[in-house]
Protein backbone atom coordinates (compact mmCIF):
# COMPACT_ATOMS: atom_id res chain seq x y z
CA UNK A 1 0.00 0.00 0.00
CA UNK A 2 1.54 3.16 -1.12
CA UNK A 3 0.26 6.41 0.16
CA UNK A 4 1.71 9.79 -0.69
CA UNK A 5 3.94 10.85 2.13
CA UNK A 6 2.14 14.15 2.73
CA UNK A 7 -0.75 12.32 4.24
CA UNK A 8 1.33 11.33 7.19
CA UNK A 9 2.61 14.77 8.03
CA UNK A 10 1.57 15.46 11.62
CA UNK A 11 -1.08 18.10 11.99
CA UNK A 12 1.06 20.41 14.01
CA UNK A 13 3.58 20.72 11.17
CA UNK A 14 0.72 21.22 8.83
CA UNK A 15 -0.40 23.99 11.11
CA UNK A 16 2.96 25.67 10.88
CA UNK A 17 3.31 25.65 7.16
CA UNK A 18 -0.28 26.30 6.28
CA UNK A 19 -0.40 30.09 6.24
CA UNK A 20 2.34 30.42 3.68
CA UNK A 21 0.98 27.54 1.65
CA UNK A 22 -2.47 29.09 1.58
CA UNK A 23 -1.26 32.46 0.47
CA UNK A 24 0.87 30.82 -2.16
CA UNK A 25 -2.28 29.12 -3.37
CA UNK A 26 -3.95 32.47 -3.82
CA UNK A 27 -1.34 33.22 -6.42
CA UNK A 28 -2.15 30.00 -8.29
CA UNK A 29 -5.85 30.59 -8.10
CA UNK A 30 -5.38 34.13 -9.22
CA UNK A 31 -3.78 32.96 -12.40
CA UNK A 32 -6.52 30.48 -13.07
CA UNK A 33 -9.22 32.99 -12.12
CA UNK A 34 -10.30 31.04 -9.08
CA UNK A 35 -11.28 32.31 -5.65
CA UNK A 36 -11.23 35.94 -6.45
CA UNK A 37 -13.43 37.22 -3.73
CA UNK A 38 -11.21 36.88 -0.72
CA UNK A 39 -10.42 40.40 0.33
CA UNK A 40 -6.91 41.33 1.24
CA UNK A 41 -7.80 41.98 4.85
CA UNK A 42 -9.27 38.52 5.23
CA UNK A 43 -6.07 37.05 3.93
CA UNK A 44 -4.12 39.01 6.45
CA UNK A 45 -6.54 38.00 9.22
CA UNK A 46 -6.28 34.40 8.25
CA UNK A 47 -2.56 34.77 8.03
CA UNK A 48 -2.46 36.37 11.47
CA UNK A 49 -4.77 33.79 12.99
CA UNK A 50 -2.75 30.95 11.61
CA UNK A 51 0.36 32.76 12.69
CA UNK A 52 -0.92 32.87 16.23
CA UNK A 53 -1.66 29.19 16.06
CA UNK A 54 1.71 28.45 14.56
CA UNK A 55 3.35 30.43 17.28
CA UNK A 56 2.12 27.94 19.78
CA UNK A 57 2.75 24.94 17.61
CA UNK A 58 6.21 26.09 16.73
CA UNK A 59 7.14 25.62 20.28
CA UNK A 60 6.21 22.01 20.03
CA UNK A 61 8.05 21.67 16.75
CA UNK A 62 11.44 22.14 18.30
CA UNK A 63 13.30 19.25 19.73
CA UNK A 64 12.69 19.06 23.42
CA UNK A 65 16.35 19.38 24.27
CA UNK A 66 16.91 22.74 22.65
CA UNK A 67 13.52 24.10 23.41
CA UNK A 68 14.17 25.63 26.76
CA UNK A 69 17.61 26.92 25.88
CA UNK A 70 16.74 28.81 22.77
CA UNK A 71 13.23 29.67 23.60
CA UNK A 72 13.96 33.32 23.92
CA UNK A 73 15.90 33.95 20.68
CA UNK A 74 15.35 31.29 18.00
CA UNK A 75 11.62 30.96 18.02
CA UNK A 76 11.34 34.75 18.18
CA UNK A 77 13.52 35.17 15.05
CA UNK A 78 11.68 32.48 13.24
CA UNK A 79 8.38 34.00 14.15
CA UNK A 80 9.52 37.41 13.02
CA UNK A 81 10.77 36.02 9.77
CA UNK A 82 7.57 34.19 9.19
CA UNK A 83 5.55 37.30 9.96
CA UNK A 84 7.64 39.31 7.54
CA UNK A 85 7.27 36.66 4.88
CA UNK A 86 3.56 36.59 5.36
CA UNK A 87 3.29 40.35 5.19
CA UNK A 88 5.29 40.29 2.00
CA UNK A 89 3.15 37.56 0.55
CA UNK A 90 0.00 39.40 1.52
CA UNK A 91 1.27 42.57 -0.09
CA UNK A 92 2.11 40.77 -3.31
CA UNK A 93 -1.22 39.12 -3.23
CA UNK A 94 -2.97 42.47 -2.91
CA UNK A 95 -1.03 43.80 -5.90
CA UNK A 96 -1.91 40.80 -7.97
CA UNK A 97 -5.51 41.13 -7.03
CA UNK A 98 -5.52 44.78 -8.03
CA UNK A 99 -4.09 43.94 -11.42
CA UNK A 100 -6.62 41.19 -11.85
CA UNK A 101 -9.54 43.44 -11.03
CA UNK A 102 -8.25 46.02 -13.50
CA UNK A 103 -8.11 43.34 -16.16
CA UNK A 104 -11.69 42.33 -15.37
CA UNK A 105 -12.87 45.91 -15.67
CA UNK A 106 -11.26 46.32 -19.08
CA UNK A 107 -12.78 43.09 -20.32
CA UNK A 108 -16.16 44.21 -19.09
CA UNK A 109 -15.92 47.48 -21.00
CA UNK A 110 -14.82 45.67 -24.12
CA UNK A 111 -17.76 43.29 -23.78
CA UNK A 112 -20.22 46.16 -23.49
CA UNK A 113 -18.74 47.77 -26.60
CA UNK A 114 -18.92 44.54 -28.55
CA UNK A 115 -22.52 43.96 -27.50
CA UNK A 116 -23.45 47.43 -28.69
CA UNK A 117 -21.68 46.89 -31.97
CA UNK A 118 -23.47 43.59 -32.41
CA UNK A 119 -26.82 45.17 -31.72
CA UNK A 120 -26.06 47.94 -34.15
CA UNK A 121 -24.98 45.50 -36.85
CA UNK A 122 -27.95 43.23 -36.25
CA UNK A 123 -30.33 46.11 -36.76
CA UNK A 124 -28.75 47.18 -39.97
CA UNK A 125 -27.87 44.00 -41.78
CA UNK A 126 -24.60 42.35 -42.68
CA UNK A 127 -22.78 45.14 -44.47
CA UNK A 128 -22.65 47.96 -41.98
CA UNK A 129 -19.58 48.29 -39.79
CA UNK A 130 -19.53 50.54 -36.73
CA UNK A 131 -16.47 52.69 -36.13
CA UNK A 132 -15.21 52.36 -32.60
CA UNK A 133 -13.19 55.53 -32.84
CA UNK A 134 -16.19 57.48 -34.02
CA UNK A 135 -18.05 57.55 -30.71
CA UNK A 136 -20.14 54.50 -31.28
CA UNK A 137 -23.31 55.35 -29.43
CA UNK A 138 -23.94 58.86 -30.71
CA UNK A 139 -23.43 58.16 -34.37
CA UNK A 140 -25.26 54.84 -34.45
CA UNK A 141 -28.40 56.39 -33.01
CA UNK A 142 -28.51 59.04 -35.70
CA UNK A 143 -27.75 56.49 -38.39
CA UNK A 144 -30.27 54.06 -36.99
CA UNK A 145 -33.05 56.62 -36.95
CA UNK A 146 -32.23 57.68 -40.54
CA UNK A 147 -32.34 54.08 -41.63
CA UNK A 148 -35.45 53.27 -39.63
CA UNK A 149 -37.20 56.27 -41.16
CA UNK A 150 -36.18 55.19 -44.65
CA UNK A 151 -37.37 51.62 -44.15
CA UNK A 152 -40.75 52.84 -43.02
CA UNK A 153 -41.02 55.15 -46.00
CA UNK A 154 -39.89 52.43 -48.35
CA UNK A 155 -42.60 50.12 -47.08
CA UNK A 156 -45.18 52.78 -47.83
CA UNK A 157 -43.51 53.44 -51.15
CA UNK A 158 -43.87 49.76 -52.08
CA UNK A 159 -47.57 49.77 -51.17
CA UNK A 160 -48.13 52.88 -53.25
CA UNK A 161 -46.14 51.32 -56.08
CA UNK A 162 -48.35 48.24 -56.14
CA UNK A 163 -51.40 50.45 -56.12
CA UNK A 164 -50.04 52.42 -59.08
CA UNK A 165 -49.36 49.21 -60.97
CA UNK A 166 -52.93 48.00 -60.46
CA UNK A 167 -54.34 51.31 -61.63
CA UNK A 168 -52.09 51.30 -64.67
CA UNK A 169 -53.04 47.74 -65.53
CA UNK A 170 -56.76 48.36 -65.36
CA UNK A 171 -56.36 51.69 -67.21
CA UNK A 172 -54.59 49.98 -70.10
CA UNK A 173 -57.18 47.27 -70.28
CA UNK A 174 -60.05 49.73 -70.01
CA UNK A 175 -58.81 51.76 -72.96
CA UNK A 176 -58.99 55.16 -71.28
CA UNK A 177 -58.02 58.36 -73.07
CA UNK A 178 -54.44 59.28 -73.64
CA UNK A 179 -54.74 62.37 -71.48
CA UNK A 180 -55.89 60.36 -68.48
CA UNK A 181 -53.26 57.75 -69.17
CA UNK A 182 -50.62 60.46 -69.33
CA UNK A 183 -51.53 61.51 -65.79
CA UNK A 184 -51.03 57.96 -64.56
CA UNK A 185 -47.72 57.68 -66.38
CA UNK A 186 -46.48 60.96 -64.93
CA UNK A 187 -47.53 59.88 -61.48
CA UNK A 188 -45.79 56.54 -61.92
CA UNK A 189 -42.57 58.23 -62.99
CA UNK A 190 -42.75 60.75 -60.15
CA UNK A 191 -43.08 57.85 -57.78
CA UNK A 192 -39.71 56.51 -58.92
CA UNK A 193 -38.17 59.97 -58.63
CA UNK A 194 -39.52 60.14 -55.09
CA UNK A 195 -37.62 56.94 -54.26
CA UNK A 196 -34.40 58.46 -55.58
CA UNK A 197 -35.00 61.44 -53.34
CA UNK A 198 -35.54 59.21 -50.30
CA UNK A 199 -32.38 57.27 -51.12
CA UNK A 200 -30.41 60.47 -51.34
CA UNK A 201 -31.48 61.41 -47.82
CA UNK A 202 -30.59 58.06 -46.24
CA UNK A 203 -27.32 57.98 -48.22
CA UNK A 204 -26.20 60.99 -46.22
CA UNK A 205 -26.91 59.06 -43.01
CA UNK A 206 -25.29 55.82 -44.12
CA UNK A 207 -24.10 55.39 -47.66
CA UNK A 208 -23.11 51.78 -47.08
CA UNK A 209 -26.71 50.99 -46.27
CA UNK A 210 -27.80 52.26 -49.67
CA UNK A 211 -24.91 50.56 -51.44
CA UNK A 212 -25.69 47.21 -49.90
CA UNK A 213 -29.35 47.37 -50.88
CA UNK A 214 -30.33 45.92 -47.52
CA UNK A 215 -33.87 47.17 -47.85
CA UNK A 216 -34.38 45.17 -51.03
CA UNK A 217 -34.95 41.47 -51.54
CA UNK A 218 -32.05 39.16 -52.24
CA UNK A 219 -32.65 38.71 -55.97
CA UNK A 220 -32.92 42.47 -56.43
CA UNK A 221 -29.63 42.85 -54.61
CA UNK A 222 -28.05 40.34 -56.96
CA UNK A 223 -28.64 42.71 -59.85
CA UNK A 224 -27.79 45.82 -57.91
CA UNK A 225 -25.37 48.37 -59.36
CA UNK A 226 -24.35 51.32 -57.18
CA UNK A 227 -27.41 50.99 -54.99
CA UNK A 228 -30.08 50.30 -57.62
CA UNK A 229 -30.96 48.95 -61.02
CA UNK A 230 -28.64 49.28 -63.98
CA UNK A 231 -30.28 51.59 -66.56
CA UNK A 232 -29.00 49.60 -69.54
CA UNK A 233 -30.36 46.38 -68.03
CA UNK A 234 -33.66 48.11 -67.56
CA UNK A 235 -33.82 49.06 -71.20
CA UNK A 236 -33.05 45.49 -72.26
CA UNK A 237 -35.96 44.26 -70.16
CA UNK A 238 -38.42 46.96 -71.16
CA UNK A 239 -37.93 47.42 -74.89
CA UNK A 240 -39.27 44.02 -76.01
CA UNK A 241 -42.41 44.76 -73.97
CA UNK A 242 -43.29 47.92 -75.79
CA UNK A 243 -43.20 46.70 -79.38
CA UNK A 244 -44.02 47.79 -81.97
CA UNK A 245 -41.69 50.75 -82.25
CA UNK A 246 -41.31 53.07 -85.20
CA UNK A 247 -37.99 53.20 -86.99
CA UNK A 248 -37.29 56.57 -85.47
CA UNK A 249 -38.03 55.21 -82.04
CA UNK A 250 -35.80 52.21 -82.60
CA UNK A 251 -32.99 54.54 -83.58
CA UNK A 252 -33.49 56.74 -80.56
CA UNK A 253 -33.79 53.83 -78.16
CA UNK A 254 -30.60 52.39 -79.60
CA UNK A 255 -28.81 55.68 -78.97
CA UNK A 256 -30.20 55.79 -75.46
CA UNK A 257 -28.94 52.27 -74.78
CA UNK A 258 -25.49 53.24 -75.93
CA UNK A 259 -25.45 56.47 -73.93
CA UNK A 260 -26.55 54.58 -70.83
CA UNK A 261 -23.83 52.03 -71.31
CA UNK A 262 -21.20 54.74 -71.68
CA UNK A 263 -22.40 56.63 -68.64
CA UNK A 264 -22.51 53.44 -66.59
CA UNK A 265 -19.00 52.50 -67.65
CA UNK A 266 -17.73 55.94 -66.69
CA UNK A 267 -19.34 55.67 -63.26
CA UNK A 268 -18.06 52.12 -62.77
CA UNK A 269 -14.54 53.25 -63.61
CA UNK A 270 -14.91 56.10 -61.18
CA UNK A 271 -15.94 53.61 -58.50
CA UNK A 272 -12.87 51.51 -59.22
CA UNK A 273 -10.72 54.59 -58.84
CA UNK A 274 -12.42 55.32 -55.52
CA UNK A 275 -11.70 51.79 -54.32
CA UNK A 276 -8.07 52.16 -55.31
CA UNK A 277 -7.82 55.49 -53.54
CA UNK A 278 -9.41 54.29 -50.32
CA UNK A 279 -7.36 51.12 -50.33
CA UNK A 280 -4.12 53.01 -50.92
CA UNK A 281 -4.95 55.47 -48.14
CA UNK A 282 -5.82 52.72 -45.71
CA UNK A 283 -2.68 50.76 -46.51
CA UNK A 284 -0.31 53.74 -46.30
CA UNK A 285 2.37 53.89 -43.68
CA UNK A 286 3.81 50.96 -41.84
CA UNK A 287 1.54 48.15 -40.84
CA UNK A 288 1.96 45.89 -37.88
CA UNK A 289 2.30 48.39 -35.03
CA UNK A 290 -1.39 48.48 -34.34
CA UNK A 291 -1.61 52.26 -34.75
CA UNK A 292 -3.65 53.45 -37.67
CA UNK A 293 -5.99 56.22 -36.65
CA UNK A 294 -4.67 58.78 -39.19
CA UNK A 295 -4.98 56.34 -42.08
CA UNK A 296 -8.52 55.44 -41.12
CA UNK A 297 -9.46 59.11 -40.70
CA UNK A 298 -8.09 59.96 -44.15
CA UNK A 299 -9.86 57.00 -45.71
CA UNK A 300 -13.13 58.20 -44.16
CA UNK A 301 -12.73 61.51 -45.97
CA UNK A 302 -12.20 59.80 -49.28
CA UNK A 303 -15.20 57.55 -48.72
CA UNK A 304 -17.48 60.56 -48.69
CA UNK A 305 -17.24 60.53 -52.48
CA UNK A 306 -19.36 57.39 -52.33
CA UNK A 307 -22.41 59.52 -51.56
CA UNK A 308 -21.77 61.40 -54.83
CA UNK A 309 -21.65 58.12 -56.71
CA UNK A 310 -24.97 56.95 -55.31
CA UNK A 311 -26.52 60.30 -56.22
CA UNK A 312 -25.04 60.25 -59.71
CA UNK A 313 -26.26 56.69 -60.30
CA UNK A 314 -29.80 57.63 -59.25
CA UNK A 315 -29.56 60.76 -61.38
CA UNK A 316 -28.65 58.55 -64.33
CA UNK A 317 -31.65 56.28 -63.62
CA UNK A 318 -33.93 59.29 -63.48
CA UNK A 319 -32.60 60.77 -66.71
CA UNK A 320 -32.96 57.43 -68.47
CA UNK A 321 -36.58 57.02 -67.38
CA UNK A 322 -37.26 60.59 -68.38
CA UNK A 323 -35.70 60.19 -71.80
CA UNK A 324 -37.66 57.00 -72.42
CA UNK A 325 -40.87 58.84 -71.68
CA UNK A 326 -39.92 61.43 -74.33
CA UNK A 327 -39.16 58.82 -76.97
CA UNK A 328 -42.26 56.70 -76.37
CA UNK A 329 -45.93 57.43 -76.79
CA UNK A 330 -48.10 57.65 -73.71
CA UNK A 331 -49.45 54.16 -74.21
CA UNK A 332 -46.00 52.73 -74.73
CA UNK A 333 -44.74 54.50 -71.61
CA UNK A 334 -47.62 53.03 -69.64
CA UNK A 335 -46.78 49.53 -70.87
CA UNK A 336 -43.12 50.21 -70.08
CA UNK A 337 -43.87 51.28 -66.52
CA UNK A 338 -46.07 48.27 -66.01
CA UNK A 339 -43.37 45.99 -67.33
CA UNK A 340 -40.81 47.57 -65.02
CA UNK A 341 -43.12 47.18 -62.05
CA UNK A 342 -43.83 43.56 -62.82
CA UNK A 343 -40.20 42.74 -63.44
CA UNK A 344 -39.46 43.99 -59.93
CA UNK A 345 -42.32 41.92 -58.57
CA UNK A 346 -40.93 38.84 -60.31
CA UNK A 347 -37.55 39.48 -58.73
CA UNK A 348 -39.20 39.78 -55.35
CA UNK A 349 -41.14 36.57 -55.92
CA UNK A 350 -37.90 34.87 -56.88
CA UNK A 351 -36.36 36.01 -53.61
CA UNK A 352 -39.28 34.63 -51.60
CA UNK A 353 -39.26 31.36 -53.47
CA UNK A 354 -35.57 31.04 -52.98
CA UNK A 355 -35.83 31.72 -49.27
CA UNK A 356 -38.51 29.08 -48.89
CA UNK A 357 -37.05 26.42 -51.13
CA UNK A 358 -37.07 22.92 -49.65
CA UNK A 359 -33.66 22.10 -48.38
CA UNK A 360 -32.23 18.64 -48.61
CA UNK A 361 -32.21 16.83 -45.32
CA UNK A 362 -28.75 16.84 -43.81
Amino acid sequence: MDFPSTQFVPSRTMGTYEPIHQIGMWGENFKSIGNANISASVIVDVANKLENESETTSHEMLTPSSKHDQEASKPFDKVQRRLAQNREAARKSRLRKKAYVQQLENSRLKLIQLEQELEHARQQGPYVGGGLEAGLLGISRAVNSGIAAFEMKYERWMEEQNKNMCELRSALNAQISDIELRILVESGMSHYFELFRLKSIVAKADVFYVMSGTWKTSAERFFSWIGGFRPSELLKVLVPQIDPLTDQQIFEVCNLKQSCQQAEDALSQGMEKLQETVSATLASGQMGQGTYVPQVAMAMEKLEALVCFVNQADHLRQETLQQMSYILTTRQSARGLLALGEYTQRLQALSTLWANRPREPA
Partner: protein
Amino acid sequence: MQQAIPYKSWPLPCVNASSRPASSTAVPPRTGKSNGGKDVLEIVSENAVIVFSREGCCMSHVVRRLLLALGVNPAVCEIDEKDEAGVLSELGMMSREKGKTVQFPAVFIGGRMFGGLDKVMATHISGELVPVLKDAGALWL
Protein backbone atom coordinates in the same frame (compact mmCIF):
# COMPACT_ATOMS: atom_id res chain seq x y z
CA MET B 1 -12.31 90.00 -51.79
CA GLN B 2 -12.35 89.25 -55.48
CA GLN B 3 -9.40 89.07 -57.80
CA ALA B 4 -9.31 91.80 -60.40
CA ILE B 5 -10.53 90.01 -63.48
CA PRO B 6 -10.29 91.84 -66.79
CA TYR B 7 -6.57 91.85 -67.30
CA LYS B 8 -5.32 89.25 -64.99
CA SER B 9 -7.10 86.06 -64.25
CA TRP B 10 -6.11 83.55 -61.62
CA PRO B 11 -2.69 82.16 -62.40
CA LEU B 12 -2.54 78.42 -62.48
CA PRO B 13 0.38 76.11 -62.49
CA CYS B 14 -1.54 73.05 -63.55
CA VAL B 15 -1.16 69.81 -65.39
CA ASN B 16 -2.37 70.05 -68.94
CA ALA B 17 -3.20 67.08 -71.13
CA SER B 18 -3.32 67.71 -74.84
CA SER B 19 -6.73 68.54 -76.18
CA ARG B 20 -7.54 68.39 -79.84
CA PRO B 21 -7.67 70.37 -81.85
CA ALA B 22 -6.42 73.25 -79.71
CA SER B 23 -2.72 73.54 -79.37
CA SER B 24 -1.52 72.87 -75.90
CA THR B 25 1.88 73.95 -74.89
CA ALA B 26 3.22 71.89 -72.07
CA VAL B 27 2.90 73.79 -68.86
CA PRO B 28 5.80 73.39 -66.45
CA PRO B 29 4.17 71.76 -63.47
CA ARG B 30 4.10 73.51 -60.14
CA THR B 31 6.90 76.00 -60.62
CA GLY B 32 6.24 79.64 -59.87
CA LYS B 33 2.77 81.03 -60.00
CA SER B 34 3.04 84.00 -62.27
CA ASN B 35 5.92 82.92 -64.49
CA GLY B 36 5.46 79.29 -65.40
CA GLY B 37 1.75 78.96 -64.91
CA LYS B 38 -1.02 79.92 -67.27
CA ASP B 39 -4.15 81.83 -66.46
CA VAL B 40 -7.57 80.34 -66.21
CA LEU B 41 -8.75 82.52 -69.07
CA GLU B 42 -5.91 81.42 -71.32
CA ILE B 43 -6.45 77.77 -70.61
CA VAL B 44 -10.17 77.94 -71.15
CA SER B 45 -9.81 79.73 -74.46
CA GLU B 46 -7.03 77.49 -75.70
CA ASN B 47 -8.81 74.21 -75.16
CA ALA B 48 -11.98 72.96 -76.76
CA VAL B 49 -12.77 70.92 -73.70
CA ILE B 50 -11.27 71.36 -70.29
CA VAL B 51 -12.14 69.89 -66.94
CA PHE B 52 -11.21 71.67 -63.72
CA SER B 53 -11.07 69.44 -60.72
CA ARG B 54 -9.49 68.76 -57.38
CA GLU B 55 -6.52 66.48 -57.23
CA GLY B 56 -7.38 62.81 -57.25
CA CYS B 57 -11.09 63.51 -57.46
CA CYS B 58 -13.00 60.41 -58.51
CA MET B 59 -15.90 62.36 -60.00
CA SER B 60 -13.61 64.15 -62.41
CA HIS B 61 -12.29 60.72 -63.35
CA VAL B 62 -15.87 59.82 -64.28
CA VAL B 63 -16.18 62.92 -66.47
CA ARG B 64 -12.89 62.20 -68.17
CA ARG B 65 -13.77 58.55 -68.87
CA LEU B 66 -17.08 59.56 -70.33
CA LEU B 67 -15.56 62.16 -72.62
CA LEU B 68 -12.85 59.73 -73.64
CA ALA B 69 -15.49 57.15 -74.53
CA LEU B 70 -17.04 59.71 -76.83
CA GLY B 71 -13.74 60.25 -78.58
CA VAL B 72 -12.80 63.49 -76.87
CA ASN B 73 -9.50 63.92 -75.13
CA PRO B 74 -10.21 66.59 -72.58
CA ALA B 75 -7.61 68.84 -71.07
CA VAL B 76 -7.52 68.47 -67.35
CA CYS B 77 -6.53 71.06 -64.83
CA GLU B 78 -6.08 69.79 -61.30
CA ILE B 79 -6.32 72.54 -58.74
CA ASP B 80 -4.40 72.63 -55.52
CA GLU B 81 -6.41 72.96 -52.34
CA LYS B 82 -4.95 76.39 -51.71
CA ASP B 83 -6.02 77.71 -55.10
CA GLU B 84 -9.46 76.14 -54.92
CA ALA B 85 -11.48 79.08 -53.63
CA GLY B 86 -9.91 81.55 -56.03
CA VAL B 87 -10.33 79.35 -59.07
CA LEU B 88 -13.92 78.51 -58.20
CA SER B 89 -14.89 82.15 -57.83
CA GLU B 90 -13.24 83.03 -61.12
CA LEU B 91 -14.94 80.16 -62.87
CA GLY B 92 -18.20 81.30 -61.36
CA MET B 93 -17.76 84.71 -62.88
CA MET B 94 -17.10 83.20 -66.25
CA SER B 95 -20.24 81.16 -66.05
CA ARG B 96 -23.25 82.33 -67.97
CA GLU B 97 -25.54 81.80 -65.03
CA LYS B 98 -23.99 84.32 -62.72
CA GLY B 99 -25.89 83.32 -59.62
CA LYS B 100 -25.01 79.63 -59.64
CA THR B 101 -22.11 78.38 -57.54
CA VAL B 102 -19.51 76.43 -59.42
CA GLN B 103 -18.40 73.08 -58.11
CA PHE B 104 -15.65 70.70 -59.05
CA PRO B 105 -15.49 69.03 -61.48
CA ALA B 106 -16.24 71.99 -63.76
CA VAL B 107 -16.38 71.37 -67.49
CA PHE B 108 -15.72 74.06 -70.08
CA ILE B 109 -16.60 73.43 -73.69
CA GLY B 110 -15.64 75.78 -76.50
CA GLY B 111 -14.34 78.39 -74.09
CA ARG B 112 -17.59 78.57 -72.17
CA MET B 113 -18.71 77.12 -68.90
CA PHE B 114 -20.77 74.01 -69.53
CA GLY B 115 -21.52 72.59 -66.11
CA GLY B 116 -20.72 69.87 -63.65
CA LEU B 117 -21.06 66.11 -63.76
CA ASP B 118 -24.85 66.34 -63.43
CA LYS B 119 -25.11 68.47 -66.53
CA VAL B 120 -22.73 66.29 -68.50
CA MET B 121 -24.68 63.14 -67.64
CA ALA B 122 -28.06 64.68 -68.34
CA THR B 123 -27.04 66.10 -71.70
CA HIS B 124 -25.34 62.87 -72.62
CA ILE B 125 -28.49 60.84 -71.99
CA SER B 126 -30.66 63.30 -73.83
CA GLY B 127 -28.25 63.15 -76.76
CA GLU B 128 -27.36 66.83 -76.61
CA LEU B 129 -23.77 66.44 -75.51
CA VAL B 130 -22.29 65.14 -78.75
CA PRO B 131 -23.61 68.01 -80.92
CA VAL B 132 -22.24 70.52 -78.40
CA LEU B 133 -18.86 68.85 -78.55
CA LYS B 134 -18.91 68.83 -82.32
CA ASP B 135 -19.79 72.51 -82.39
CA ALA B 136 -16.84 73.29 -80.18
CA GLY B 137 -14.60 71.37 -82.51
CA ALA B 138 -13.74 68.79 -79.94
CA LEU B 139 -15.24 66.02 -82.00
CA TRP B 140 -15.22 65.27 -85.67
CA LEU B 141 -17.23 62.74 -87.58
